[in-house]
């Protein structure tokens, strides 16, 4: 057959990435070319297997809330630093606005530069001393992280990971908070979802429907999660649930204290939604598995 189709084009065709003319050409060609039809069918089958496998593995829940708060924390720090600069500049430009002040402003700038320059030259002078001081120390800290290997290799990997995390991220949530999610599910889950406690409290508008949906979902998920989830996803699920519960817990407290706090309320609602999504992902998994069988 003239001009048989390349596997790459077939893949593009399958992914809907070919242009209109190409699509027509390919479908016409496939109609009377058996090898290409076979190739397309095979590509379709393989894609189905591969992408459903990848979906299962890659599309797990993402710790949205934690990421958002971590990012905001470092941004607000950055901002504070920036706004200090901004103020200094604003003051300077205010002074410069008067013509008589201009000369004084220039003088101030020159003076500041001179100070900066002199400070820097002093610190340059100090540097060698620092280097010497550092040079006497290095053997101790480099040996420390490798030592635990002798007792337990698994643990070392974790410590080095933690080290690199600390060094690469200037601002981070204390490790205690992070460690939370391994132990939290057992402690937290019954507390936040327990109906009696919530009943005694006053609901904010719309909250009750969320609570009811969550309680219903939770029931069905609890009955099937052992069966449906493989251990690895089970751990991920419990961990994500703990994170969501934690946010709900905290936001509930804030909202009870100050019912007019709109942003806290919004966050509470979105956390409820997160929880529903999470529970749904487990509840629907069963259906998905059934449809695959």
């Amino acid at each position, binding site marked *: 057959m003239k001009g048989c189709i390349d596997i*790459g084009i077939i893949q593009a065709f399958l992914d809907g990435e070919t242009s209109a003319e190409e699509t027509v050409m390919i479908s016409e060609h496939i109609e009377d070319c058996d090898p290409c039809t076979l190739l397309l069918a095979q590509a379709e089958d393989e894609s189905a*297997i591969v992408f459903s496998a990848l979906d299962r*593995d890659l599309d797990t829940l993402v710790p949205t809330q934690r990421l958002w708060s*971590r990012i905001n924390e470092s941004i607000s720090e*950055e901002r504070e630093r920036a706004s200090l600069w901004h103020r200094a500049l604003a003051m300077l430009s205010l002074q410069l606005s008067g013509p008589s002040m201009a000369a004084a402003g220039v003088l101030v700038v020159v003076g500041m530069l001179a100070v900066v320059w002199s400070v820097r030259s002093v610190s340059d002078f100090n540097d060698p001393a620092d280097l010497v001081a550092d040079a006497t120390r290095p053997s101790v800290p480099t040996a420390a992280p490798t030592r635990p290997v002798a007792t337990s*290799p698994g643990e070392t990997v974790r410590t080095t990971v933690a080290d690199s995390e600390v060094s690469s991220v200037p601002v981070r949530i204390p490790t205690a908070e992070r460690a939370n999610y391994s132990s939290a599910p057992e402690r937290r889950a019954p507390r936040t979802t327990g109906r009696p406690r919530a009943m005694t409290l006053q609901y904010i508008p719309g909250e009750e429907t969320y609570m009811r949906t969550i309680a219903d979902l939770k029931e069905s998920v609890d009955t099937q999660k052992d069966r449906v989830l493989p251990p690895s996803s089970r751990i991920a699920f419990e961990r994500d649930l703990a994170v969501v519960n934690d946010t709900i817990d905290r936001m509930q407290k804030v909202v009870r204290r100050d019912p007019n706090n709109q942003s806290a309320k919004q966050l509470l609602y979105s956390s409820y939604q997160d929880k529903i999504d999470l529970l749904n992902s487990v509840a629907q998994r069963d259906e998905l598995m059934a449809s695959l069988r």
Partner: protein
Amino acid sequence: MMLKMSKVTEICVDSMSEQASAAAKTETIEFEEAFSLHHRTVFRAARSVVRDAGLAEDVTQEVFIRLYKNLDVIENGEMLRPWLIRVALNLAKNTVRGNNRANTRDENYVKQTEGNDVFSVESEYELKSELSDVSRALGKVREPLRSCLVLKQQGLSYREIAESLDLNETSIGTYVARARQEFLKFYGKAGKETVR
């Protein structure tokens, strides 16, 4: 979180003219939108390289901080997602490289002190079994095929994939097809083992 943002904007209103604060507000909205639209893809792309949720979080955080710093430079158009992913993949690769160096150091140490630790095989097995069959098979697929496959799975268009990975758009189809075949070659065996 949002509270903090509003507090920060308040501080800024003091020192900035109204116009500037309005611009900052639209920037904040743009940033929030970019985060909510793309953080999942960024996180998952990073995790496919670093294979650790904690490290992927660090990478994702750094990616969005860089976006924040460059908001005025990067246009919030269709090429935003490829930009984010490109940054994420680079950071993730650097993280892995750093970790590998640390691991080799540990391994050298283990080699030196070998003989008295019987449990090393056991713990190595544990480490390996933490990874699912899928990520193990995915790990064996060569680059850039693997990234193509992951990004395709995450719903990026061929154009976006090409932009993220610095590849020619016309060859993405071939890459995806080859990646798919390679993945299946590795996954096929492991996958059957777990089914039976």
